[in-house]
């Protein structure tokens, strides 16, 4: 299997050297042990944090970024193969293992290549430069007399004079800081980056050989299912354990404050016990009525107003407009709804916690688990395995906390697999968004005024994370954050309006525990802005593409819009309107 997360155990200390054995088979057996003792560098400014070159020629890349199904485990390999001039299939990649990878930040915001990849590229360039210098010394020529092919440095004019990377560095550390000035290969010389190569994981994924998080098994592990309250804030009054006493293989009903779970020898015993367990809960009706959700949003207390654009005098311009329109847009609460419900395994050994997880942010998860379970962060190790497609902070972190709590209780590794209803009910949600827009046209059909208001939750510093369900239910230490992500994004329209004002009313609360999901704000706010542009175009009697182009001075944006229209075989037409026309003043 590819992407074996090497364990600390793999780093065998030699005579001042660091020897890495690449176990490409049986990584799970390897991963089941944890001895976080040896110290592989993980600092962001060390070459050794990102790269090891083995005497076998194998290059291993360590990245804190994880592949969530977008193919970055292939493209990061391409970057390193290109910069080091080694074949793509010589490269192994370790993702998101907090013990061996540098913390390059969560895998969010489309930053894996543009930030994570750039860090890895610079580490590779530094390594390449050092290897060239060493080779130059060894071969008695100047570095610029050398070239590199397939991991072999050779004299340009005499290819018999050569030395391989493996001879220069094999199994040893570089002991080098990442050199920001180390020369990068010129894009004109690229032979690997920019080409379309097959993804390394697909053959295993279409044959059942790939290990997803849900497929990880740790020796001695038990199976758990959580039993969540029937309402968000309901409190557990009593549990009737006799209701599950006949279930073969059931080990324990675990209760801690409002946290309830069953642990069993087999998945089916846990599933049955969770569905049969009789518990009484207090009634709780803190959610707004579905039909009145947006009235609830509109009347929620405002923490502060944030103006995202303020130009000209839209109020006066609106009053003087030839035509005025208003519209309200409601964007529903969203579940992440991954096709594979969240799953995690946790194991405690000597006050040290190991968690197998599909989290998009293993380094953050490690810190939050340490806080909730009262251990130093260096006593927590998170190992990444793919989940089903991930679109933000979903339930995987919560499953990890469930598993950590239960594993501590049981003294054995525990696997928690959320059921579909756990996922839909308890993953953090994209919050409801409410948008009011008013706009005015002049007699020629140009936008003379734009005023918009967005009702969206306030946001704690995004790196402060989202509190675990288990921490809330079991009343364990947690930060009381509200973290819907950057939901203000794209609230300011990008058109060239002379008079424009947009304000985000940041709300104190939102009905469900929020989190960032798929390009937070941009989708919701752009939907409102663009839908209203269509309304204005309709009122102006102008084709909506033409109408937009009239209000753009951004060449790139205009090019994209024209290209999209061409590809969509756009037929020029007027939009139909559903906005409220406001009587002229």
């Amino acid at each position, binding site marked *: 299997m590819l992407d074996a997360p090497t364990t600390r155990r793999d780093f065998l200390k030699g005579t001042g050297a660091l020897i890495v054995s690449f176990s490409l088979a049986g990584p799970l057996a390897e991963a089941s042990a944890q001895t976080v003792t040896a110290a592989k560098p993980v600092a962001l400014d060390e070459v050794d944090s990102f790269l090891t070159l083995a005497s076998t020629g194998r290059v291993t890349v360590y990245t804190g970024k994880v592949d*969530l*199904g*977008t*193919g970055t485990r292939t493209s990061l390999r391409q970057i390193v193969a290109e910069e080091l001039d080694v074949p793509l299939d010589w490269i192994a990649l370790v993702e998101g293992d907090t013990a061996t990878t540098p913390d390059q930040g969560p895998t969010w915001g489309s930053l894996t290549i543009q930030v994570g990849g750039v860090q890895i590229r610079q580490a590779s360039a530094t390594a390449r430069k050092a290897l060239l210098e060493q080779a130059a010394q060894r071969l008695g020529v100047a570095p610029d007399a050398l070239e590199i092919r397939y991991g072999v440095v050779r004299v340009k004019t005499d290819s018999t004079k050569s030395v391989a990377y493996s001879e220069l560095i094999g199994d040893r550390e570089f002991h080098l800081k990442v050199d920001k000035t180390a020369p990068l290969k010129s894009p004109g010389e690229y032979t690997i980056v920019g080409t379309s190569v*097959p*993804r390394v*994981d*697909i*053959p*295993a*994924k*279409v*044959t*059942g*050989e*790939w*290990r*997803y998080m*849900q*497929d990880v*098994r740790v020796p001695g592990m038990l199976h758990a299912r959580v039993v969540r309250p029937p309402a968000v804030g309901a409190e557990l009054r009593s549990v009737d354990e006799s209701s599950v006493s006949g279930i*073969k293989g059931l080990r324990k009903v675990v209760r801690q404050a409002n946290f309830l779970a069953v642990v069993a020898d*087999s*998945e*089916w015993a846990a*599933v049955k016990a969770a569905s049969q367990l009789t518990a009484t809960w207090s009634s709780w009706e803190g959610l707004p009525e579905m039909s009145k959700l947006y009235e609830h949003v509109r009347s929620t207390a405002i923490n502060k107003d944030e103006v995202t654009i303020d130009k000209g005098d839209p109020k006066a311009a609106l009053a003087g407009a030839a035509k005025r329109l208003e519209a309200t847009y409601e964007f529903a609460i969203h579940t992440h*709804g*991954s*096709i*594979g*419900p969240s799953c995690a395994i946790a194991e405690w050994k000597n006050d040290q916690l190991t968690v197998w997880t599909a989290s998009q942010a293993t380094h953050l998860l490690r810190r939050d688990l340490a806080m909730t379970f009262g251990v130093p962060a260096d006593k927590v190790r998170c190992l990444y395995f*793919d*989940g*089903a*497609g*991930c679109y933000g902070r979903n339930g995987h972190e919560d499953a990890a906390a469930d598993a950590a709590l239960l594993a501590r209780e049981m003294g054995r590794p525990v696997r928690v*697999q959320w*059921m*579909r209803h756990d996922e839909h009910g308890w993953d953090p949600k994209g919050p409801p968004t409410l948008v009011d827009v008013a706009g005015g046209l002049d007699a020629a059909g140009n936008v003379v005024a734009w005023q918009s208001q967005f009702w969206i939750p306030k946001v704690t510093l995004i790196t402060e994370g989202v509190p675990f369900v288990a921490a809330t239910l079991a009343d364990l230490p947690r930060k009381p954050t509200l973290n819907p992500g950057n939901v203000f994004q794209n609230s300011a329209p990008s058109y060239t309006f002379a008079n424009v004002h947009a304000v985000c009313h940041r709300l104190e609360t939102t009905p469900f525990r929020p989190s960032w999901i798929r390009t937070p704000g941009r989708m919701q706010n752009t939907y409102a802005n663009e839908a209203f542009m269509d309304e204005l175009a309709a009122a102006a009697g102008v084709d909506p593409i033409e109408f937009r182009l009239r209000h753009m001075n951004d060449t790139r944006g205009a090019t994209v819009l024209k290209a999209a229209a061409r590809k969509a075989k756009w037929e020029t037409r007027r939009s139909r309107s559903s906005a409220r026309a406001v009587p002229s003043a």
Partner: protein
Amino acid sequence: MITLVVNGQTTRFDLDADTPLLYVLRDNLALNGPKFGCGLGQCGACTVLMNGQAVRSCSVPIAKAAGLRITTLEGLGSSEKPHPIQKAFIDEQAAQCGYCINGMIMTSKALLERSPNPSDREIRKALAGNLCRCGTHQRIVAAVKRAAVLMAKGG
């Protein structure tokens, strides 16, 4: 004791008769191809073949599967020696996260057995009950079409 015949191997299990086939395949036989997605027979991620028919293994109690010919994704081929359908999915790079792909391939296998040269419409109809959250549908349909060609050529 319940006897299951999976990918040509016969195994006897001393398990509750109502245990869903999916858990036995995954936990007792370590066959990770079939995936848990909903446990309700609604998403298709757990699809296996039972006597050639695509079924949702999360909703089939092992008692109902006893003695029948069960084929999982692993029973089709391996990355070393992929089945033509698996090869077609590799050639078309028809996966993002890949979690649903087991169901897509197994359902396509049943389709191609009964209709070796399906139209786009037939493919879409056959796969309509298999959910993909990433949005790989276009490539999946292309892969099934390619698989039909590969299979017609004899793999």
